[in-house]
């Protein structure tokens, strides 16, 4: 049977559904009997949600953005007018 320490190491794989059926059953069996690991897995679920939310909050509250956006668009317009060509140094095809 998995120890709590082993389960805590596998919590991400469990939440990502990236483990074999047999391993998943081992985790589920442990969780049926262990309130500590149930709490831990729930904490990791909340943590992942907060990490994802943090990016959105950060994006919405960055007060320096307007000036940066103006600066980038002005630089782009100037480059477009001076060359009218793509930037050969940045030719990065998506794969």
């Amino acid at each position: 049977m998995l120890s709590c320490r082993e389960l805590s190491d596998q919590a991400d794989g469990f939440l990502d559904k990236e483990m074999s059926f047999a391993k998943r059953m081992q985790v589920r069996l442990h969780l049926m009997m262990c309130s500590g690991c149930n709490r831990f897995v729930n904490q990791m679920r909340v943590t992942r949600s907060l990490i994802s939310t943090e990016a959105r909050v950060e994006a919405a509250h960055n007060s320096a953005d307007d000036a940066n956006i103006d600066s980038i668009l002005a630089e782009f317009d100037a480059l477009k007018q001076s060359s009218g060509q793509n930037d050969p140094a940045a030719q990065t095809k998506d794969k």
Partner: protein
Amino acid sequence: MNEISLMSDHTENDAEILRALANGERSAFEALYRRHNTSMVRVASAILRNHASGEEVAHETWIAVLRNINGFEGRSSLAGWIFTILSNRAKTRVKRDGRTVALDISDQENNADEAFDARGSWKNLPDLWDEITPERVIAGRQIMEHVAQTIEDLPPAQRAVLVLRGQQELEAQEVCEILDITEGNMRILLHRARRSVRNAIDAVAG
């Protein structure tokens, strides 16, 4: 638009944003910038080990994205394409400075073992965290600021993986290619990063 929805459903919005960018719509660029810029600075800073240089590379990347947007063929996600340009530029700058490009994946393990006794059982039961929900946290901001600071303080390799996989939600393979790491190492770094954030939240939630 609800400001929190800026990053929602972004994969579905790629085509729409590309069309609007091609038409020169400022609002499309603004949405794309707000969705990715903070993450771009974090990833570039992790590669460069310097925040100011990370901001410069993010700025250069936006110019490159605008100049080459017509070359984007949709074979990867738009975010994957943008972060590939970003990492290439950051790595070029690292090489130019005569430094090693590879991210240090031997970042310290957090002290997870201290939570367990000799048999591997919890010494103390983890807290319930009943009071923590995303809605309450956003309203209060305090825990979210703590999460943000913890992410900023993570070792560079952990921070880069957490941002690309846990926040930008890129595919695992894209993250590995952008950072030149194996999938196994990516999973270890991601787990350590999430665990560090969990520990930081637990310290203020208890």
